[in-house]
């Protein structure tokens, strides 16, 4: 598996650390209520298909990246800098 870091270019997967669902970029507001916070902290989809994860280019530039990939085909469709995601 290869991931194209927006800064460094195409790199081997071993340079990256898998963090988890990109839900971490969509933190609810403090007063969003119990249901929203329960969902944010505990509930994750387990899709057969397109998914969006956070990875870190830990053995490279150190950037956090959002990886759009497909769990069925293993295709990596898009990679963006987490710093560029508007929250």
């Amino acid at each position, binding site marked *: 598996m290869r991931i194209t870091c927006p*800064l*460094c*270019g195409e*790199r*081997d997967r*071993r*340079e990256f650390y898998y963090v988890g669902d990109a839900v971490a970029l969509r933190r609810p507001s403090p007063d969003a209520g119990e249901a929203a916070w329960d969902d944010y902290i505990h509930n994750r989809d387990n899709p057969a298909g397109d998914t969006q994860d956070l990875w870190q280019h830990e*053995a*490279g*530039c*150190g*950037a956090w990246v959002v990886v759009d990939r497909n769990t069925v085909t293993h295709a990596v469709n898009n990679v963006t*800098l987490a*710093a560029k995601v508007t929250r």
Partner: protein
Amino acid sequence: MVKLIEKTPCAGLLPRSIGLMTLAEDAYPAMTSIAPYQGQSRQVSAALKSTFGVGFPSPNRSLLSDRVRITWIGQGAAMICGEAPPTLTGAAVTDQSDAWAVVRLTGKGAEDVLARLVPVDLRRPQFRSNHTARTLLGHMHVSITRIDAKTFEIMAMRSMAQTLVHELSQAMENVAARG
């Protein structure tokens, strides 16, 4: 106070010549990492340029002036090697002198040595002089910069100096054995 004797990170380990290649230490008198705060990159780069003649490097590039080499070392960060920078407002500035082992691998076969250890294609023409990469050498996090057609500069954390020299020497022996 006891007079302490300063040792460079690779003291007693280098230089080594194997085959047509040489591995030597290149200890900079000063190394300083700089990371401009949000919105300050342009101002910091201008300050560097007026002092050293070169500004903040773009990703995957290293800039050389007659006084310093400034190498991109990651997202929003660069290492000034050679001289300490002037007082910089608008950036996180950290003295990293003595914290890094810096070596130069030179000679015919240097690319083949790195090809055995590094998961990035460092051959020319895609990796030319003053191109740089943050990547792995074995299991070590390193910064690799091409100095010229047959020379690479490799920086690793000082605590890894012995492993760095071991890994490179082993690969140099293996490449040299192939003739």
